[in-house]
């Protein structure tokens, strides 16, 4: 019940807020912050109570109740390590976002209600263990996000929000058909666990199912070439919306691959893996190149998300313990560092009311603290050793390099150029915005971080450093889930090879000894699969 409490507490808070007077915005700000902090506090109990041992049950804090029993739909929630990490990311990010959104002055009541409803939907998406329940939360996100962008966004918001809604809604409806198809072929259950163990479909059907799910997830990630909604939505959304979009919503896509598309349809996943991996690499390079030509800071950060999420997808598609662990870790990193970047850009925007890079320049002297925070976040974003970004990117690239996917080393090598390009566009951005001489007179009077803004940024900067130096507490919960997925994919690989003896093994690492003995940070060692990939 603890998990259900975490899921529904924000919604409850939103319901209470609906009855508070709308003419007193202060009440709403305080209430929303209180509710989100309380949710975070309770979610810490989940974190503390989670057993990451190999013998522990796969899903913990489970609750299973009938919901629409006549249609075989249940209320089933539970967390594995990856879902736990993403729930923690959500509950930690939401109060920060709410605090950062204290500057919103228009329709504060509705704004805070939308954020709280959004939080419930996000946590629910990660916690759901019933396919229909998952779909309900998955789609439920669209409504508050649609309103957040459309009501509180900037000039071009209507176009952006409709594009966002239609893109994601249209891509998801086929997943619903897929979910129903699964129901028909797993003995009549929408339960995720039942579906995973009892699904019996032909190889062709599995391919279609994988594509139906993958389409929904790939749009959300977003994978190249389905990313076009993202720059618009991120750019036009209010700061809070951008942070939530980048911080949590995009992870729903990668989480979907990790939790649903790959374990439910492992054979098909292996078949489509090369294509997805290539798209991931294209996304990495394309996103980075697009960043180089952006005039608008927010748009630049948005495209950097395409590039970073490409890394996550590459790690997932490598299907090595290192790659998967790195992918999961990079989901958290991206949530923290890109979330922080959007917050910082939002703070600059509030000072100058422009997002154009050319309007800034040389402001580091005026806003030293802001500049410092920006630089720290930038270093995390480009994966400097000592920050969280390094751990994730290293694991992903190492995992891909050592993997057995066809031409995996080429993919890893090309992907690695994304790291270099990332350093180029981010450092260039810092240079153009913060260093050099002040060219615009308005920039001479910029105030530095206020106390509230410092409180917003402090936890983010702290997280960047802690997650960079001591990744173990964050990697440990993910390990059992990653190992299980690797084993599952290995079984699928064996099945495929039994059918086609000429097929080389494609899952796990080429040289197990090298993988475990490499100079990986602590996390890579911890995440070594039980089988060592030697099948």
């Amino acid at each position, binding site marked *: 019940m603890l998990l259900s409490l975490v899921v529904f507490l924000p919604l409850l808070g939103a319901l209470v807020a609906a009855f508070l007077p709308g003419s007193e915005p202060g009440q709403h700000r305080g209430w929303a912050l209180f509710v989100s902090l309380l949710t975070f506090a309770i979610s810490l109990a989940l974190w503390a109570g989670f057993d990451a041992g190999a013998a522990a049950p796969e899903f913990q804090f489970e609750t299973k109740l009938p919901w629409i029993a006549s*249609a075989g739909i249940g209320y089933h929630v539970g967390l594995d390590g990856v879902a736990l990490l993403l729930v923690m990311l959500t509950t930690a990010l939401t109060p920060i976002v709410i605090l950062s959104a204290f500057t919103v002055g228009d329709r504060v009541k509705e704004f805070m209600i939308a954020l709280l409803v959004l939080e419930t939907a996000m946590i629910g998406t990660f916690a759901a263990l019933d396919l229909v329940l998952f779909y309900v939360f998955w789609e439920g996100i669209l409504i508050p996000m649609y309103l957040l962008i459309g*009501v509180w966004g900037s000039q071009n918001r209507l176009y952006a929000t409709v594009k966002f809604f239609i893109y994601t809604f249209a891509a998801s409806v086929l997943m619903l058909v897929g979910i*129903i198809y699964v129901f028909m072929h797993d003995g009549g259950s929408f339960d995720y666990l039942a579906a995973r163990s009892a699904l019996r479909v032909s190889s062709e059907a599995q391919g279609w199912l994988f594509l139906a799910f993958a389409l929904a997830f790939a749009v959300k990630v977003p994978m190249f070439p389905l990313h076009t909604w993202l720059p618009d939505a991120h750019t036009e959304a209010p700061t809070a919306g951008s942070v939530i979009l980048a911080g949590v919503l995009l992870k729903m896509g990668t989480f979907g691959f990790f939790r649903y598309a790959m374990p439910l349809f492992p054979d098909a996943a292996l078949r489509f893996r090369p294509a997805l991996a290539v798209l991931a690499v294209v996304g990495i390079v394309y996103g980075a190149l697009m960043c180089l030509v952006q005039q608008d800071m927010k748009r630049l950060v948005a495209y950097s998300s395409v590039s970073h999420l490409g890394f996550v997808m590459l790690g997932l598609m490598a299907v090595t313990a290192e790659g998967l662990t790195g992918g999961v870790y990079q989901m958290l990193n991206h949530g923290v560092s890109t979330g922080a970047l959007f917050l910082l850009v939002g703070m600059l925007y509030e000072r100058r009311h422009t997002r154009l890079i050319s309007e800034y320049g040389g402001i580091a002297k005026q806003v030293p603290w802001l500049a410092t925070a920006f630089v720290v976040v930038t270093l995390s974003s480009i994966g400097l050793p000592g920050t969280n970004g390094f751990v994730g990117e290293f694991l992903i690239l190492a995992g891909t390099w050592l993997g057995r996917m066809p031409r995996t080393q080429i993919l890893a090598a090309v992907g690695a150029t994304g790291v270099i390009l990332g350093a180029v566009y981010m450092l260039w951005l810092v240079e153009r915005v913060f260093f050099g001489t002040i060219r615009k007179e308005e920039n001479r009077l910029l105030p530095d971080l206020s106390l509230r803004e410092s409180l917003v940024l402090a936890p983010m900067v702290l997280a960047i450093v802690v997650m960079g130096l001591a990744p173990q507490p964050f990697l440990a919960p993910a390990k059992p889930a990653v190992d299980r997925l690797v084993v599952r994919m290995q079984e699928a690989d064996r099945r495929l090879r039994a059918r086609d003896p000429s097929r080389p093994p494609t899952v796990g690492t080429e040289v197990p000894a090298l993988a475990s003995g490499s100079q990986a940070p602590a996390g890579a060692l911890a995440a070594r699969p039980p089988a060592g990939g030697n099948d």
Partner: protein
Amino acid sequence: MPTVPPADLLALAPVAILVLGGIALMLTEAFLTSGRRRYQAALTVVFAAAAGAAALLGPHPARIFGGQGTADAFSAFVTATVCLGLALAALVGAPWLEARDAERGEFYALALFGTSGMALLGMAADLLVAFISIEVMSLSTYALAAWMRRGRKPAEAAFKYFILGAFSSALFLYGTSLVYGASGSTLLSDIGKGGSTALLVAGLVLVAAGLAFKVAAVPFHVWTPDVYEGAPTPVTAFMAAGVKAAAFAVLARTALAAFSGAPATIGWLAGLLAILAVATMLVGNLLAVPQRSVKRMLAYSSIAHAGYLLLGVVVAADRGARQEALSGILFYLASYTVSAIGAFAVVGALERQGRTPADEPDDACDVDRLGGLAKRRPLLAFAMLVFMLSLAGVPPTAGFVAKLLIFKAAVGAAQYGLAIVGMLTSALGAYYYLRVVVFMYMRPAAEDEPAGVVSPVLSVALAAAVVAVVVLGVGPEPVAGLARSAAALLR
């Protein structure tokens, strides 16, 4: 002349209550009016509630009047749904009519008589009984559509509705005669006896065409936008919900009876209905996109929704998926009733009113009327948001569960193509429903935009509809379970 057993008469209690209610309302108009007619809507609601309760709680004999009718749980569900629609429409109608100084007891009386026809239609197990019920229902709705008869648009709408309605009745009757010729009976249960002769197929096709007019399926839909737009808004709501529910009940029964016949007949009919369903989903959704008038958009969307319901009927041809499909249809009807009436109620509250009956602003129901509604009337805007999301099928609303149940049946019957077409068109639907939300929440109001009329009565209706949409979306089990057990009887 065989005697009628009392139990058969008891099974007709809901219909009797509705007819009595109609008579009572007529009498109140003659004897109990002193200018204030507020109580008439309330009285209508009472009769509707009584009829709905009688249908749900009363006895459920499977055969009444020698098999010409049935009072099974399926018909009870349909009766309860149309009574719910009647009650909501009456509450929506009262303030709308009062604002136009057109509230009369006859309005409610006609609605009650019409609903009695709908309830009878849900019980019909014989093509002739169905025909008579259709006429009872239609005559009332023709008159209701002409309620604001002094205006040009309502008059045109009513006339169009009458002419095309009569045409569809003729088709239905002609089809009935052919079926009788083939099978020697008008009982639905005897359709199977007709074998698979061309005569029977032709008759069934004509019957289906007649009903397709009533449910506004493509290509028999052309009257819908004009009639829905021209008719008084509460009447449109009543027609969209009630007529559709009743017509689908009899369409489902007829199709099921035909599906139990020879395989050749089944193939013909199911194929034809599948084509109708696809065309209806596509055309309804595509034509709804460019509409500026919200009322007209809702008219096209009602065509689209008929497509999803038709999909359910097609799927019912598959014996394994029959119960799923029928319970899906029933749930969909209940969900559409509350969502659509709610949406029409909001449109009616904001409709721009001419100064005289002859003065009909062309932009009376334009989407501009909703501009900035979230600032002017936040609760009204929120209600409309809920209805739009439900019509679009976004969770967690009634519309989502309804679509889920229908598509679940479709996938269960291995109708993947139909399910995918349905899903993709419903994604298209999201576009035009969302445009309403865009106007309400994200655009400013026009300078001189009046705040709209929201009386306490309308607030009650809207609150009830919102609660129903959310409850059916979050906790659908009671109603879904009821629909499922109702559908079990028709296997």
